[in-house]
C-alpha cells in the first residue's frame, strides 16, 4: 500500500513539474470565412460560412452589421476529424446574407471568441447588382421559372396607418396564404421586408389557420411585427417577400387522369385523387412571392423637446414608489418607477429626479414585461438607488417626457413627491465624501494665511507622499517573480517526497533484516531441539541463537552480542547469567581450540539445560 501511494506521489510530482513547462499543448485555433458567391442580385441570398478550427467552444460573432446587408443566422454545424489518433474539430456558423440595395459591400473582420482568444475572420466583399434582368430567384436548380406564384399562394402586408411620426411603433401584420394543394416544405429564409429608413422588430412565430378565398383553400400563416420610422419623409415599406419551398406537380409527368378527355378515369373524383400531391409525381420548388409595398408618410418630431426627452414615442403612464421611508443620510433608498403603455420601449429611459440637489444617484436597472408578442406594449420597471447627502423630508418628483403621436405633442409625466424622513446629516449640502474623509493637508505651509472656505464639492489637495516605489497594474499572478517564488515550496515538496520515499525504502530493509534474523533463530532452535549434532556445533548454535535473540530484542548487530549484553538485555538472574557466560565460554573454547584442549562432550542433561536457557530468553 505504501509503495503504491509512493508511486502516485511520484506521478503527481511529475505532473506538477510538467504542468509548468508545457502550458499549452493544443494546436492554435484558426478561423476562415467564405461567401457562397461574391456576386449576387439585390434580394438574392448568399451564404456566409465561418469555420473555426481547433477551438473547443467558440462563440459566434455577437452582431454582424453592414449597411445594406441583412444577416440571418442559418445554423451551426460541428465536424470531427481523426488523424493518427489526433482528434480535431471544427465548427461552422452559417448566415444567410441578403443585400437590400445594389452596391459593393465589405463585410469587416468579425471577432470570434475561441476559448478566451479572439480570432478575426478575413474581410469579405460582396457585389450586389440591381434586380433587373434577373432570371431566377436562387442559384439552385429549384426555380420558379415555370411556376406561377399566384397559383401557389400570396402574401399581403397590412399597416394600420399611413401617417406616423419618427420613432413611432407601427404594428404590421403579414399574411401568407399557401394553396393547400401545394404543401410547404420550408419557408426558406423567412419573411423579408425591404425598404430603407425604418427598423423592424423581431417577427413573431407564424400563427397557422385555414381560409377559403374564391373557392380555393389556403393555409394561412400570420406573422406580426412592428416597424419604426427612423427618418421623416415618404417611406416605401416593403414589399414583404418570402420564398417558400413547396411541392408542385412535376412538369411533363401529368397523371393519366388528366391526359385526354373522355378516358376511363376522366372523373372529377379521380382527377382530384390523382392530382393530390401526395400521390402525384411532384418536385420541390422555391416560389418567390411578394406583397404590394405600402407608403408611409413620416412626420418629424416637433422642435424643442423637453430636456429629459430620450426619444420615447407612444403613450405611457408613470407609477413610482420609494422605500424605506425613514433613513439616515447616506443610506440607500430604492425608487421603483414603472412606465406602462405602448410605444418604443427601447428608447424609454429611467425617469429622473426633478431636482437632484443633495442626492447621489446610482445607475438604474430595468426590466421589461411585454403585453403583446412584438414588444410594443407592456411595462418597463426601473429600480434606482439614491442616497441623500443631507436631511430631506421628501423625494422630489420623478419626471419622464415622451412624444404622444395621438396628441401630436410632447408630454411630461410627473410623479407626486414621496414623503421621506432622512435625518442624521448637516443641514448644509456638504458632500459627505469630501467632508467626512478630508484629512488635514500634510503639505500645508504652517505660516500660510487661513485658507478661504472651499466650495463644498471641492477635492482634497495634493499629497506630499513622494514615494519612489514603482507599482505595477499587473496582479501578482501575472508577474514572473511570483511564479519563481513558487519554486521554493515546490523544491520543499519535492524534498519531502524524496525523503519519504527513502524512509520507506529504509524501513523496508530493516523489516527484511528482522525477518532474516527471526528465521535464523527459528532454524537454530529447531537444530538444538533435534539434538543430533556434536557438542561443538551444539554450543555454537546455542550461543548464536542467544546472539540473534538479543539482537532482535535490542535492535543490535548480532555479531557484537556477548554474554553480558544478552544477560542485561533479558534481565537474567545470577544463576542464569552464570549459565549464559559458561555457554559462551565453552562455545568459544571449543570453536577456537578445536575441542582438543577440553571436554568436548555434552551430556543430555546439559543439552536440555542449554535449550531451556535459550528458549526462555524473552524480553
Amino acid at each position, binding site marked *: 500500500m505504501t509503495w503504491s501511494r509512493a508511486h502516485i506521489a511520484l506521478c503527481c510530482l511529475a505532473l506538477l513539474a510538467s504542468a509548468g513547462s508545457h502550458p499549452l499543448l493544443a494546436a492554435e485555433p484558426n478561423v476562415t470565412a467564405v461567401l457562397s458567391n461574391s456576386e449576387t442580385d439585390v434580394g438574392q441570398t448568399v451564404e456566409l460560412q465561418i469555420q473555426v478550427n481547433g477551438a473547443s467552444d467558440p462563440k459566434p460573432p455577437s452582431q454582424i452589421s453592414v449597411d445594406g446587408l441583412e444577416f440571418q443566422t442559418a445554423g451551426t454545424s460541428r465536424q470531427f476529424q481523426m488523424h493518427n489518433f489526433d482528434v480535431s474539430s471544427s465548427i461552422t456558423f452559417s448566415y444567410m446574407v441578403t443585400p437590400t440595395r445594389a452596391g459593393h459591400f465589405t463585410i469587416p*473582420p468579425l471577432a470570434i471568441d475561441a476559448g478566451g482568444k479572439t480570432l478575426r475572420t478575413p474581410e469579405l466583399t460582396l457585389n450586389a447588382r440591381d434586380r433587373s434582368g434577373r432570371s431566377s430567384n436562387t442559384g439552385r436548380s429549384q426555380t420558379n421559372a415555370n411556376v406561377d406564384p399566384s397559383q401557389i399562394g400570396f402574401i399581403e402586408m397590412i399597416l394600420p396607418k399611413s401617417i406616423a411620426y419618427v420613432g413611432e411603433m407601427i404594428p404590421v401584420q403579414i399574411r401568407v396564404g399557401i394553396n393547400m394543394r401545394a404543401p410547404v416544405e420550408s419557408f426558406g429564409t423567412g419573411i423579408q421586408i425591404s425598404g430603407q429608413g425604418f427598423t423592424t422588430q423581431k417577427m413573431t412565430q407564424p400563427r397557422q389557420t385555414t381560409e377559403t378565398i374564391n373557392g380555393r383553400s389556403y393555409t394561412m400563416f400570420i406573422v406580426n411585427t412592428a416597424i419604426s420610422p427612423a427618418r421623416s419623409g415618404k417611406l416605401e415599406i416593403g414589399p414583404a417577400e418570402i420564398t417558400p419551398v413547396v411541392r408542385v406537380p412535376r412538369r411533363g409527368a401529368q397523371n393519366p387522369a388528366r391526359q385526354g378527355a373522355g378516358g376511363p378515369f376522366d372523373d372529377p373524383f379521380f382527377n382530384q385523387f390523382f392530382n393530390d400531391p401526395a400521390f402525384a409525381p411532384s418536385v420541390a420548388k422555391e416560389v418567390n412571392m411578394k406583397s404590394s409595398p405600402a407608403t408611409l408618410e413620416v412626420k418629424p418630431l416637433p422642435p424643442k423637446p423637453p430636456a429629459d426627452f430620450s426619444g420615447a414615442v407612444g403613450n405611457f403612464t408613470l407609477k413610482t414608489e420609494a422605500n424605506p421611508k425613514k433613513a439616515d443620510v447616506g443610506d440607500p433608498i430604492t425608487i421603483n418607477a414603472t412606465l406602462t403603455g405602448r410605444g418604443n420601449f427601447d428608447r424609454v429611459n429611467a425617469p429622473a429626479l426633478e431636482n437632484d440637489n443633495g442626492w447621489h444617484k446610482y445607475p438604474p*436597472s430595468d426590466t421589461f414585461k411585454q403585453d403583446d408578442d412584438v414588444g410594443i406594449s407592456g411595462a418597463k420597471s426601473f429600480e434606482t438607488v439614491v442616497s441623500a447627502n443631507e436631511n430631506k423630508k421628501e423625494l422630489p418628483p420623478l419626471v419622464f417626457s415622451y412624444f404622444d403621436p395621438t396628441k401630436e405633442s410632447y408630454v411630461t409625466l410627473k410623479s407626486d413627491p414621496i414623503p421621506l424622513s432622512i435625518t442624521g446629516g448637516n443641514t448644509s449640502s456638504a458632500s459627505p*465624501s469630501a467632508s467626512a474623509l478630508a484629512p488635514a493637508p500634510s503639505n500645508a505651509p504652517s505660516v500660510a494665511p487661513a485658507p478661504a472656505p472651499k466650495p463644498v464639492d471641492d477635492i482634497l489637495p495634493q499629497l506630499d*507622499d513622494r514615494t519612489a516605489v514603482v507599482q*505595477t497594474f499587473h496582479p*501578482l499572478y501575472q508577474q514572473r517573480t511570483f511564479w519563481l517564488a513558487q519554486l521554493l515550496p515546490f523544491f520543499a515538496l519535492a524534498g519531502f517526497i524524496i525523503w519519504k520515499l527513502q524512509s520507506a525504502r529504509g524501513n523496508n530493509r530493516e523489516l527484511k533484516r528482522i525477518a532474516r534474523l527471526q528465521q535464523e533463530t527459528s532454524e537454530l532452535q529447531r537444530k538444538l531441539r533435534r539434538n543430533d549434532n556434536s557438542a561443538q556445533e551444539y554450543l555454537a548454535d546455542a550461543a548464536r541463537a542467544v546472539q540473534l535473540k538479543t539482537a532482535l530484542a535490542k535492535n543490535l548487530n548480532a555479531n557484537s552480542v556477548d554474554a553480558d549484553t544478552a544477560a542485561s538485555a533479558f534481565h537474567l538472574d545470577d544463576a542464569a547469567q552464570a549459565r549464559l557466560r559458561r555457554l559462551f565460554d565453552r562455545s568459544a573454547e571449543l570453536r577456537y581450540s578445536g575441542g582438543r584442549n577440553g571436554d568436548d562432550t555434552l551430556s543430555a542433561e546439559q543439552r536440555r539445560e542449554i535449550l531451556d536457557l535459550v528458549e526462555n530468553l524473552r524480553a
Partner: protein
Amino acid sequence: MKFRTLTCALLALAAVSALHAETADNVAQANQEYQAEHFPEAAALYQKAIDAGTRNAAVFYDLGNAWFRAGDAGQAILNYERALALRPQHPEARANLHVARDKARALELRPQWWDEFIARITPNQFSIAAASVFWVLAFAVAAWLFAPRRAPLLLALALLSALVLGSLVAGLYALETGNNGRDLAIVIAAKTEARVATADSAGSVLVLPPGSEIRILSTRGDWIYAALPNDLRGWLPALSAQRVRL
C-alpha cells in the same frame, strides 16, 4: 575583463540614476505648476513622469487632481481609478473620485452581487492566499499518500484546502473579469454615445458622460464593444475610453 564589467555596471547605474532624477524633476516641476494654478501644464508634467516609468498611486492621484482643476472630469476620474487600482486603500483618491463623479454625473457600472464579498480583497491578496492554500493542499496530499496508515485528519485538511483553493480561484477570476477587473475602462471623451453598431450613424444606446465606467468586452478596429451602466451593451469609439490598468 573585470574592469570592463565594472565600467558597464557603473554606466547602467548612472543612467538609472539620471532617469530617476529626471522623473523626480518632472514631478517637482509639476507640483510647482499646480501650486501656480497652471493645471494643464501640471497634468502634462505628471503624465511625462508617468510615461517615464514613475507609476505609483501618489502620482496618479496628483494627476487626477490636476485634470480635475483643469476641468477634465473624465481624465480626473480615470487617474483616481488608476491610483485606486494601485492602492485600493487610498482614502484621498476615493474621496476625490466621489466628488469628481458627482460633478460629472458620471455613470457607474451596476455592482454584481459578489462584489460585496470580494471587492475588499485585492487580486494580489487573492494570489498569495491561493498560492499558500495550493501548497498546503500539495503537502497534505503528499503526507496523506505517505502516511503508514489511514490519516483522516490529513484527508480532511486536503479536502478543505481544495475547497478553499477553488473558492479563491473563482473569486480571483470574478474579480479580474468583473466590473473592477482588467477590462474596466473610463470614458474620457465628451459627448460619447454608445451605439448599436460600429457606425456613427447607428442608433444610440446610451449617452455616457465623461468619467463613466464601462467594461470592454471586445474590440473591432476603431470601436470597442462594452458593457455599459444600466446593464446595457453597445459600441463606442476606441479613443473615447481608456483602460484603467495600463
